[in-house]
Every structure is written in structure tokens, then in C-alpha cells.
């Protein structure tokens, strides 16, 4: 075939990758034309990342790769050897991985990393190389290229790091970029800027293969979307088609699972329901939120932070993590706390749990001055306030199985209330009783989070502190967990402090929200209203930046 300008930069047919007998990529085919952005969407384990790596011949030494056709710029690479691949990489295909903190060598200056492709592929005097590095850093919008080039990835913020990584990928202006989860673990605002940057490249005619678990993210860039599941492409089409009229239940589930836009109380996890039943399910859910919130107002808040300030010692003075924060959670209500990393959310959680003492101000739990008690006095009261963390696994004793974990938690309650049995707890969080005998390590992320919830409930608390409870989960799983939390919170009338960086999630879960920035609460109010008409510019920016499925 002849290579004309708009012939595909990437043309793959029936790509198969298997590790020791088990096939993880099963016949993927795709074409990418110059300037086109194709997205592969799928949940963890769907084989999307392996596919991406296979396109660079990096599936791994123990992987067996085969394909009917694997052409980059019309060059067939199906049978390419390591040497040939080395020539292709960076020159023809650039790779952008997620989280540059680990994707850039923490021991080498960023500049050197970006220099590598130049050194490896071009005859270039060092001085020229360095000049080029600065230019690249400038192109990816690095504020101070000269400084950045000297720094190491650890010294850069997440966003700048990612830009550096991109700079390295585009060093040789490859016609094709592969971006594997390029914005995961980034704050929404940063994410928006990175996506914008990528968009610039496609605009200049670079082909982009975007790998992501997040439909909302993909929507912004992709011309076409491939949905992968269990190593195979189960749906393919233009972005409009796939998002507008999904053909498979799975895709529908993915779409439904995205919380942003789905109103409070409406279940997200519709994955195993027949399409027919959906509407009525939604309806029932809708009715569920009829509990009038204003009624709660006049009650005394169950948990309240009253002008709390917390500072930490750093080498040159003190750094204020939480600055004069006041908030309150009532029985049966969910307060959403949203903010970007470093805004002090977690410190608020730790203050509420009385794991650290406030420098000034009080934390009040049901009238008692929670933060002023001595630990000994506090201990008997602790069961009244439970916690759920982002990383469930590390919150379990690695040596214990689920049963023991739950029993231990239940028996911890010195209060009279009879502790619910392990089986009951598991059943409440929708886990089979058999799970009791397994170790958390062997459970899936979703199951772990359910166990975490069960443990929190074991002590039958009145207040629940959820710190990024679903950030580490796939959308569909996230949906199920959110639904579970929502249901439990309502059925038990728990007061819930729900902390997340994801506006969508918060908006879906919270009755009221507080927006944090730099340790301050910049805006608070009823969820819908805050998100609909943000009063504070920062909130407005957040809302604008956070990707949505529908405008």
C-alpha cells in the first residue's frame, strides 16, 4: 500500500497478547489517522494497557504477541526484533504513562530524561540537545524550563511532572502518541490543562491513542471510542454514538456509573438490571430522597468543627493545614467536603476522628467537647464515630482474615449494644459469608471496600467519616460502593462526612457540600445550589474543569 498523507499512522488488525497460555488481549483491531484521537475505555484488567504497550513492543519479555497486521506509518512491525522496535519507539511512537512520579526516574534530572530520545536517535551536540530540552519544556507549558530541567521528578508537582513526561514523549515529534491514563491521580484543574495540552497535539496532526477508565475524561478529546472488556473490544464508534446510544449493557453501565449529573439518591449501579427495569428502579430511588432535609436544621449537629485551626511544623516555621474551619454534620445527613490535594481535607478528617488535636477551636461530638477529652475518656466514645479510608487494604491487619477483622471490630465496642455477627455484617454490605475466611489481600478492590464499610458498621457508629472512599475504584465498582454507602447512611440515619476530590461523586452523595482550598472553606451550602450557581470563583473553576458526560 502507498503511504499518502492521511494514511493511518497506526493500523492494527487482530492483535493478540497472551501471558503463559492466558490471552489478555484477544484480537484488537484499530486504525488511527493523523490528527485523530482514538480512546480505549475499559476497567482495570480489561487489557487496555497491555494493548498500549504491545503497540510499542513492550508487552513484556514473558508475553507472546501476535497480530494479523501491526503497521506504524505503514511500516509492518508484526515480526520486528528488539533493535527495530528501539528505532520505532520515541521516533514514531511516543508513550505517556500515568503518574510521572514513578514514570520518570526519581534519581535523574528531568532534563536528562527528556534528553534521552535525542541522544539515542539523533546525532546532536549536547549543547543543542539541552537547548531542545528547554524548548520542549516550554512547549508543554513548563513555567520555568531551566529550573525544571535541573530538578528531579520528585521535586515537581504532579501537573508539572506530567508535562515533563509528555515533553519526553514528544521530543522527536512522533506522529503517534499513546497516552495511558495520562491524567489519573491528578486534580481536576490540572487534569483539564493536561487534556488541553494533548488536544493541541492532535490539532497539529499527531495521532493520539488515549487509554482511560474514565468516559468523562475521554469524551473531551476522543473522536472515536473503543470499549474494552476482558481483552476484547465489545463496542466501537464515534464518541457521539458510543456515549449517545450505547449498544451494549456494559457500556450503558459504564455511562450510568459516572456520578456527575446523576442526581442525589438515584442509584448508579444498574449493571445487572435489565434495561426495562431501569426506569422504575430510578423512580423508586427518586422517591427515596423525599426525606425533607430542612427538618434536620434545628437539631443539634451530631459532629461539629468550631473554628478549628491546625498547623504543622515544617523546617522554616509552621504550615497551616486547616485554617479556622467550621462545619457541622447532622444525624441522617451527608456533608460533602470537596477540594484538591493539599487543601486540608484529610486533616479535617483526622481532626474529626480526634487523631490529632486542633491548635485552636473545638471539635464537638454530640455536645461533648470531643477534642478536649483525654484519650482515656475518649476511648469508650470512639465507637460512635467510624471511618472509611481510600486504601482499604492497608487499613486491615495483613495477617488477619475478614472474619477476624470484623469480629475484632465488633468486640471493640465497650458499649452495651450487642455487636452484630460477622455473617450479618457481611450480608449487610452484600458479601457472601464465605468471604469471612479470606484474607483482604485476596479480595478485589470493591470487596475490600465493602469489608471496610462492614468494619465501620460493626461498632454501630452514629457518625461516619469517609475519606476518598472510592477514589481507587473502577467506575462500576465505585457506583456500587456509593450506592451501598448511600443506602446504609439512609437506613441507619448516619451522619456522614464524605470527603472527595471528585465533584461528581460529592455532588451525587452529599446533601450539603463544603469546598476547601488551602485549608480554608471557601464555600458551603446545599449541594445542588453550590454546584449549580457557584458563588466563589474557585468553586466555579472546579465545576468548569471537572469533566462531564453531558453538558
Amino acid at each position: 500500500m502507498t503511504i499518502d498523507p492521511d494514511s493511518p499512522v497506526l493500523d492494527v488488525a487482530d492483535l493478540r497478547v497472551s501471558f503463559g497460555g492466558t490471552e489478555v488481549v484477544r484480537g484488537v483491531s484499530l486504525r488511527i489517522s493523523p490528527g485523530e484521537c482514538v480512546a480505549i475505555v475499559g476497567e482495570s484488567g480489561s487489557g487496555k494497557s497491555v494493548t498500549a504497550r504491545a503497540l510499542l513492543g513492550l508487552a513484556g519479555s514473558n508475553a507472546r504477541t501476535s497480530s494479523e497486521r501491526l503497521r506504524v506509518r505503514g511500516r509492518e512491525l508484526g515480526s520486528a526484533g528488539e533493535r527495530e522496535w528501539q528505532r520505532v519507539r520515541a521516533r514514531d511512537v511516543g508513550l505517556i504513562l500515568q503518574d510521572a512520579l514513578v514514570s520518570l526516574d526519581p534519581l535523574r534530572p528531568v532534563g536528562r530524561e527528556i534528553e534521552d530520545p535525542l541522544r539515542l536517535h539523533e546525532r546532536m551536540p549536547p549543547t543543542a540537545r539541552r537547548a531542545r530540552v528547554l524548548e520542549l519544556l516550554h512547549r508543554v507549558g513548563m513555567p520555568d524550563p531551566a529550573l525544571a530541567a535541573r530538578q528531579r521528578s520528585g521535586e515537581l508537582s504532579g501537573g508539572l511532572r506530567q508535562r515533563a513526561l509528555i515533553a519526553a514523549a514528544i521530543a522527536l515529534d512522533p506522529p503517534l502518541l499513546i497516552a495511558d491514563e495520562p491524567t489519573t491521580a491528578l486534580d481536576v484543574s490540572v487534569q483539564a490543562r493536561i487534556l488541553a495540552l494533548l488536544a493541541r497535539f492532535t490539532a497539529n496532526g499527531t495521532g493520539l491513542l488515549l487509554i482511560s477508565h474514565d468516559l468523562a475524561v475521554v469524551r473531551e478529546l476522543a473522536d472515536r471510542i473503543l470499549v474494552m472488556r476482558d481483552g476484547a473490544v465489545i463496542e466501537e464508534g464515534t464518541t457521539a454514538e458510543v456515549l449517545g446510544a450505547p449498544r451494549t449493557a456494559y457500556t450503558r453501565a459504564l455511562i450510568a456509573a459516572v456520578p456527575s449529573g446523576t442526581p442525589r439518591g438515584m442509584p448508579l449501579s444498574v449493571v445487572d438490571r435489565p434495561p426495562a427495569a431501569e426506569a422504575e428502579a430510578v423512580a423508586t430511588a427518586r422517591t427515596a430522597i423525599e426525606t425533607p432535609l430542612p427538618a434536620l436544621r434545628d437539631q443539634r449537629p451530631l459532629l461539629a468543627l468550631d473554628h478549628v485551626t491546625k498547623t504543622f511544623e515544617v523546617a522554616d516555621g509552621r504550615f497551616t493545614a486547616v485554617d479556622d474551619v467550621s462545619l457541622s454534620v447532622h444525624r441522617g445527613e451527608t456533608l460533602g467536603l470537596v477540594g484538591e490535594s493539599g487543601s486540608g481535607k484529610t486533616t479535617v478528617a483526622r481532626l474529626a476522628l480526634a487523631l490529632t488535636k486542633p491548635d485552636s477551636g473545638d471539635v464537638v461530638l454530640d455536645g461533648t467537647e470531643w477534642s478536649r477529652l483525654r484519650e482515656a475518656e475518649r476511648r469508650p466514645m470512639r465507637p460512635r464515630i467510624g471511618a472509611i479510608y481510600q486504601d482499604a487494604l492497608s487499613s486491615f491487619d495483613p495477617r488477619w482474615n475478614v472474619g477476624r477483622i470484623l469480629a475484632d471490630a465488633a468486640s471493640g465496642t465497650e458499649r452495651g449494644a450487642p455487636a452484630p455477627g460477622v455473617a450479618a455484617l457481611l450480608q449487610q454490605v452484600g458479601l457472601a459469608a464465605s468471604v469471612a475466611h479470606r484474607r483482604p489481600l485476596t479480595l478485589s478492590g470493591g470487596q475490600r471496600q465493602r469489608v471496610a464499610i462492614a468494619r465501620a458498621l460493626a461498632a454501630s457508629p452514629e457518625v461516619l467519616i469517609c475519606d476518598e472512599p472510592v477514589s481507587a475504584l473502577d467506575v462500576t465498582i465505585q457506583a456500587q460502593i456509593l450506592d451501598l454507602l448511600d443506602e446504609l447512611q439512609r437506613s441507619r440515619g448516619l451522619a456522614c462526612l464524605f470527603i472527595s476530590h471528585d465533584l461528581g461523586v460529592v455532588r451525587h452523595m452529599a446533601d450539603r457540600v463544603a469546598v476547601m482550598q488551602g485549608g480554608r472553606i471557601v464555600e458551603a451550602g446545599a449541594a445542588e445550589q453550590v454546584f449549580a450557581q457557584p458563588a466563589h470563583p474557585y468553586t466555579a473553576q472546579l465545576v468548569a474543569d471537572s469533566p462531564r458526560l453531558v453538558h
Partner: protein
Amino acid sequence: MTRGSPADPRRQRRGRTIRHAGLLVAGAVFVMWAVATLTFFAIRLIPGDPAQAILGGPGSQASQEALDQVRRDYGLDQPLLVQYLAMLGRLLTGDLGSSYALKVPVADLLGAQLGGTMLLALLSLVLAWILALGLSLWSTGRGRVSTAVGEGIELTAAALPHFWLAAVLIAIFSSGLGWLPPVATGTPAGLVLPVVTLAVPLAGFLAQVMRESLLDAMQQPFVVSARARGESTTGVRLRHTVRHAALPGISLSGWALGWLLSGAVVVETIFAMPGLGRTLLQAVTLRDIPVVTGVVLLIALVYVLMTVLTDVSSRIADPRLRQEANR
């Protein structure tokens, strides 16, 4: 999430470094004092009359007059506390006292020995490093067999007693092949066997750590992205993973040196090299308290300096350490 302060990171880091340095120095001083005290009293526990030691050691049929004479001369008739304070006082002025047996100032004695031992130790350290790096690089990530072989070598090397290894080396390279002198002749050739003897077991230890961190490094995503930039596997090893393998090695050089100095006791004896180790052994058998104290203090000092050095150098080598916010 409460990491990262609004303040300028560089100023912050400098502040951190200063505080850190402060702690290091304080620790160092404390260590030196404690070692001095520990040694002083530990040696007092040893049976045997120092005066006797001074009079040509045990078995000499020294007369009562001689014994009394010596006790007066060396202030051994003073109460222990007085002697202890006297010693501390002298230490502050850098005076280590005078050897019972050799009748010369300890400082001069050790001054003469320090160079040789440090040279021996440092050369061994370097060699151990090279061996360990080479071995771990060769044997890591190349499949089960080479890994098993590599670990076999490490463990064996680590399990070799110095005195035995030395004997074997001498039997082979001196008596057998006649390539190298079995006793230190002051020539470079004379250093080869001692250095190898000390380095091999140490290399065994270091290689174990290096392999681990090497494996960790090789599984990091940055390896993938490096290769995605067109780097060859060897390139990745040389430009990326090696550094990571080296890190623990650096941070361990501190105790490694102390360890080597212990080993020097045996090695210097076998290869008849002048040095601290041999001085120490002789001093202990002769109950030559000032010398023992001197040697231990010296070794402690070297150790302390070394830990500071390694701390600093690994901070330079690994920016992540500098990053750590102290909470």
C-alpha cells in the same frame, strides 16, 4: 494530603538540612563520649592488674617495689572515678595517654597505624562495591538460573570466615602460583590478598541488598517509559537501575567500614600488616588499656564520620530523602 507547604521549597529544604545536621553532630558527640566511657569501664572489668601489664605483662616476676612504683607513675592508685575524669579531661585535649606496654604516646602509635588500616578498609570497600554491583547486575533479572547462581555466590561469599579465606588465597596465589606475596610488603602487590580477603564476604552482603533494590527498580514504570524512549535493556541497566541498586550500598557503607575494621583484626594478623586491628588485638592480650581505649575511640570516630558522610552522600544521590517533609 497535608504535605507540601506554601513556603518556598528550597528555603524549607535548607532549614530541614540544618536541623538534620544539628542532630547528626549532637549524636556524634554523644556517641564518642559513650564509647569512651563504655570502653573505660569495660576494660576495668578485665581481670589482671594493669600495673602487672605495664611490667612486661603477666608472668613477669616483678618485685613489689616495681609494682608500687608503676601504680604511682600511672595514677592507678587513684579511685576509679578520678581516673575516669582524668581520662575524659585528657581526651578533651586530644591526649590519649601513653601505652602501658610500648611506653610511647598512644596518639603517635595510632597515628602511625591509622593510615594503613584506612587504606586497607577503603580499598576493600571499593572492591566489595565493584564486585557486588557486578554480581547483582549480572545475575539479576536474567531468569531463575542466573539468579539462583548469583544468590548462591552471595551467600557463600558472605559465609566465608576471613581467616579461612585468607589461608586459601595464600595457599593458592602465594604458595601455589607464587603470584602474590603472602605478607604485606608495602608494595601494591602486597595489598592485593588482604583487600580481596576483606572485600569478598562484604561483597556477598552488599550484593544481596543491591539485587533487591535492583529488582525493585526494574519493576518501576520509569523503566518502561525509558524503553519507550528507545533505550536498550542494557542502556536501562546502566543509566537507570544501577543507581537504584547502588543507593542502599551507599547508605550501608557506614557500618560496612566498621565491619571491615573488625575484620582487619584478623586480616592484619594473617598478612602481617601494621594496623589498628593488630594493635587492638595485641593491646587486649597485654591489657594495654590506653591503647585499647585509643583504638576503640578512633574506630568510633571513623564510624561516626562515615555515617555522617554516607548520610550526606545518600541525600545527594537520592533527592527523595531531601524531600521528606518532617511531620
